[in-house]
């Protein structure tokens, strides 16, 4: 029974105005109302609420479900014993217990089959097993021999290098001496003027001498230590070189022999600490003092030997192992060390340099962009179709429309690109693609040339492609085209720059060209024709007046002539008019 029912029973007029509101509410309450309307009692109670909405959206439908869920049995958790190292026979069994979801019986069944979940993470690194002492000794012999050979080779190389450098130095010194002598002679001859020079020299020379001394001393030193490699010292970087020299010396000192036990110990540690070299070095407490590099070297070279003697070995692995080089490693670390030893001032300087470099880069990119914009402006549309189709007015409008569309698209694209740059934030500006006509070789040859030049150079290129034999010749022409020519030369070559003149695309014969002076009325033209015939000036014939030989000069002269003829005719016409008028007035006055 709803409130409406009661109103019906009591015959009370329903408030019509509230009706739609109620309906609306009913529908809005529907989602949770529908489920609850099934039971009569709740529906009546709910309807008694009338137009008011319940204050809290109670999960009416959920009550039954939650009751049902309460009846469910709690999922069992069992404290299960487990062995973390089930398959590892090395370790003694320890049993721990953890809580697992599921009933005991079920879990016990499963447990028997499954290994401990985390056991799969317990992986051991695969290291070749150390061979017995005898083979080890053999290996070491071989290794030593090989290394000795390498060392000797290197020594030889270094020696040669040193000798070469010594020769160079001698030559340099000689040259210097000669120069000095020459200067001295010069000084003598012109002592007064070179007084300043002398001063500079005297300041300079002790330093030079000292340097030379140093060099000499070092070369002696090098000779003493014939067995060591000495890098000949350059004046500027004497300190660095000394460092490296020392390092090489250190590497060259015959390393302490690795006994079998020590190697065994090393292999053990490598296995225990999974080749984490810093840790191995840390735990390596054999009385012989080894560096990480020593340890690595020994391990790798022994491994190589072991693997080489195995039938089933991976050659790639051996190669990668033999890539290790102790001196190089030491050198690398030395570099790193130096890098870290920079002072704050040096770091700051470096940073500022980097920033500056970046600025330059940005500027260069910006310039590229601007240039490409400029090039797009210079770019003229290329003719791909025949000229005839543009000779009619329809063709021209088509062309115009096409050009407009292209232009619009270009603008739009530029806008889009700009927007993209804005949205992507501080991304460095990327220069837009250079238009085809302006790009690469095309750009180089054509963009800054006139059409004639373009045409010519294009032609040249074609001929080049066709006939490689004319290459040289054409090159000369090309060079000529690139040059700035004087007026005379231009005339001689028949070059002409059109400047502001409007040109039609395509090839035009001057004989078909219309002269600008001919844009006159037909009647005028007739009289012009008469005048020309009168003056006996030859034309190409027909209605189009042309000189017989339409060269540029004759064309312009001809044009001039026609213009002056037209002007003359006009003048004559005016004169005639005026005369007629005078006559008329005279006759009117009766003067005649």
């Amino acid at each position: 029974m709803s409130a409406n029912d009661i109103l019906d029973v009591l015959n009370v007029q329903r408030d019509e105005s509230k009706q739609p509101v109620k309906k609306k509410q009913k529908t809005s309450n529907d989602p949770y109302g529908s489920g609850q309307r099934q039971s009569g009692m709740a529906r009546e109670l709910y309807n008694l609420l009338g137009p008011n909405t319940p204050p809290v959206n109670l999960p009416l439908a959920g009550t039954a479900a939650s009751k049902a869920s309460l009846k469910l049995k709690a999922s069992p958790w069992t404290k299960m014993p487990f062995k973390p190292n089930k398959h590892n026979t090395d370790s003694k069994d320890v049993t721990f217990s953890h809580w697992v979801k599921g009933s005991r019986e079920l879990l016990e069944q499963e447990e028997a089959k499954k290994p401990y979940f985390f056991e799969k993470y317990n992986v051991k690194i695969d290291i070749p097993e150390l061979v017995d002492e005898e083979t080890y000794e053999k290996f070491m012999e071989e290794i030593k021999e090989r290394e000795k050979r390498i060392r000797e080779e290197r020594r030889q190389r270094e020696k040669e290098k040193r000798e070469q450098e010594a020769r160079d130095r001698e030559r340099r010194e000689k040259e210097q001496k000669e120069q000095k002598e020459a200067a001295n002679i010069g000084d003598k001859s012109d002592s007064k003027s070179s007084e300043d020079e002398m001063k500079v020299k005297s300041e300079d020379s002790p330093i030079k001498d000292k340097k030379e001394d140093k060099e000499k001393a070092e070369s002696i030193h090098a000779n003493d230590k014939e067995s060591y490699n000495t890098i000949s010292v350059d004046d500027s970087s004497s300190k660095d070189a000394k460092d490296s020299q020392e390092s090489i010396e250190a590497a060259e000192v015959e390393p302490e022999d690795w006994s079998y036990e020590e190697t065994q110990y090393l292999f053990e540690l490598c296995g225990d600490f999974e080749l984490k070299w810093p840790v191995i070095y840390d735990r390596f407490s054999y009385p012989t003092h080894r560096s990480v590099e020593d340890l690595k070297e020994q391990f790798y070279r022994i491994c190589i030997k072991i693997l080489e003697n195995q039938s089933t070995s991976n050659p790639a692995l051996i190669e990668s192992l033999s890539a290790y080089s102790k001196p190089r490693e030491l050198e690398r670390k030395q570099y790193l060390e130096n890098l870290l030893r920079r002072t704050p001032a040096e770091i700051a300087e470096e940073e500022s340099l980097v920033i500056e470099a970046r600025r330059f880069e940005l500027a260069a990119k910006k310039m590229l962009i601007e240039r490409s914009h400029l090039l797009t402006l210079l770019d003229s549309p290329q003719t791909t179709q025949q000229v005839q189709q543009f000779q009619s007015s329809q063709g021209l409008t088509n062309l115009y429309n096409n050009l407009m569309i292209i232009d619009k698209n270009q603008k739009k694209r530029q806008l889009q690109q700009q927007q993209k740059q804005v949205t992507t934030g501080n991304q460095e500006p990327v220069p837009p693609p250079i238009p085809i006509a302006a790009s690469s070789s095309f750009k180089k040859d054509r963009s800054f040339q006139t059409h004639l030049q373009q045409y010519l150079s294009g032609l040249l290129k074609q001929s080049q492609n066709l006939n490689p034999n004319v290459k040289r010749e054409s090159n000369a022409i090309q060079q000529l085209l690139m040059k700035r020519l004087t007026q005379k030369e231009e005339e001689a070559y028949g070059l002409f720059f059109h400047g502001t003149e409007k040109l039609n695309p395509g090839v035009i014969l001057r004989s078909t060209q219309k002269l600008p002076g001919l844009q006159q009325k037909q009647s005028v033209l007739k009289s012009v024709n008469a005048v020309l015939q009168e003056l006996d000036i030859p034309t190409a014939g027909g209605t189009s007046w042309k000189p017989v030989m339409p060269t540029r000069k004759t064309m312009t002269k001809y044009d001039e002539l026609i213009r002056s003829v037209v002007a003359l005719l006009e003048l004559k016409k005016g004169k005639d008019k005026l005369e007629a008028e005078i006559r008329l007035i005279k006759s009117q006055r009766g003067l005649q």
Partner: protein
Amino acid sequence: MSSAANSTTVYGGDEINAIVLDPGSYHTRIGYAGNDFPKVLSPSYYASPADESMEAEENKKPVRRIFGEDINVPRSNYNVHPILKDSVIVDWDAALDQYSYYFKKVLNIEYNEQPILITEPVWAEPKYRQTLVENFYEYYDFPALYLAKTPTCVSFQQGRPNCLVVDVGHDSVSVTPVIDGICLLKNSMRTHYAGQFLSDQIKDLIESKKKENLSVEGIYKIKSKIPTVFPEPAEFTTRNLPDKITKSYDEFQKQKIWHEFKETILEVPERRLTSPNMQQAATLKEFYSSESHQRAFEFPTGQSLNLGYERYQLADSLFDPQVYKFHNEELAKKYPPNGGELLLKSKYDDYRPLKRVRKAESNQSTPPPVESPTKGDKSGKSDVRGLSQLITHTLSTIDIDLRASVAHNIIVTGGVSLIPQLTERLYNELTNTNPGLKIRLHAVGNSTERSNQSWIGGSVLASLGTFHQMWVSKEEYDEAGAERILNSRFR
């Protein structure tokens, strides 16, 4: 967690309720792995009757020992003893007694149900470790145990496998590089310029002022008090106490005062207080003596003392251990100049090879650790390393390839590191001395977490599923032998 990306990652935890024991030189922490805080946090001290201990030795009767906060109850004739020194157990009987007290009486655990993880300092000697392991196997009935190095635990707590753990604790300051969760022992350093050093300085400072009407009494003696300020005499009444309160008990109570002083008053100055420039030193002193830098410390007697420059000077001694000059000769002797090098023993120490070839040590990228402190003694003053010098030195000894990553992950831990401004000062000094490295300090913000960080790390470690293959059972220990287990399993 519901996203698909996470479905591939495995939840690495697997609780087996292992016990984690972290004996520190000030506090001992015991609790269950997987918890975020130890269940038991007890001072590493015990109280025992002074005369009884003698009798017990004779009669083979167990000594009656009191642990935990109960130590603070004033009893007649009860001595207070430390169990650990430098995070190393020195009083084995008491230690085992204390642990079994907590295991059985407080936590009520069955030994055989779970393994135990024990933390140990980096400088623990092989012999000590062996004793520790053997004692635990014999004395208790744990099925398995594991020794974890404290810095390793700290690195686990922070989840940083490569880091430099700077532990500013009670007895010692230690700096340990951790690589892939394994401590590098040769590069580790330790000095004693830590909490106890500060406490002794405070004690020295207060004692020197004691003549001028400053009365310092343990809180246990005070019944009532009226607040006064230092030049005025203290006004308080004492409690009725059992007679024959021992000296060690009184000292223990006074230590608490120093400790409180340390926690509330000290602050690290922005810059080194001693400088070769006298002018600058004077201005610094003036600056820190100003009114705004003064704090008052109230002693249990109700008397409060205003301190300005001293509170900075004391804290500065962590960075510059020689800034404070002891009035008391004996205390000064307690802290000989210490460069922080650790003496590590190995089984090969007595063996010397016959042929020694000169090595160019200067050029090795991994500088060999300084072999003996005697070498440093000659250089004298420069050998005393404050906190930042200690770290810088450690950084300079680490392999060049690791240096950058380690410098970027410096973890500052330990209770004394909670002194205000300590990390800031440390950061400034380290960035100044290592311009080429990018220094980053990590310090837990929560103060209780910072002082118990190693326990929490142990708790993390022992609750990992992958860790359960690492436990070492007694049988395995017996079979493989102490040395092998200690070196290759408890790494």
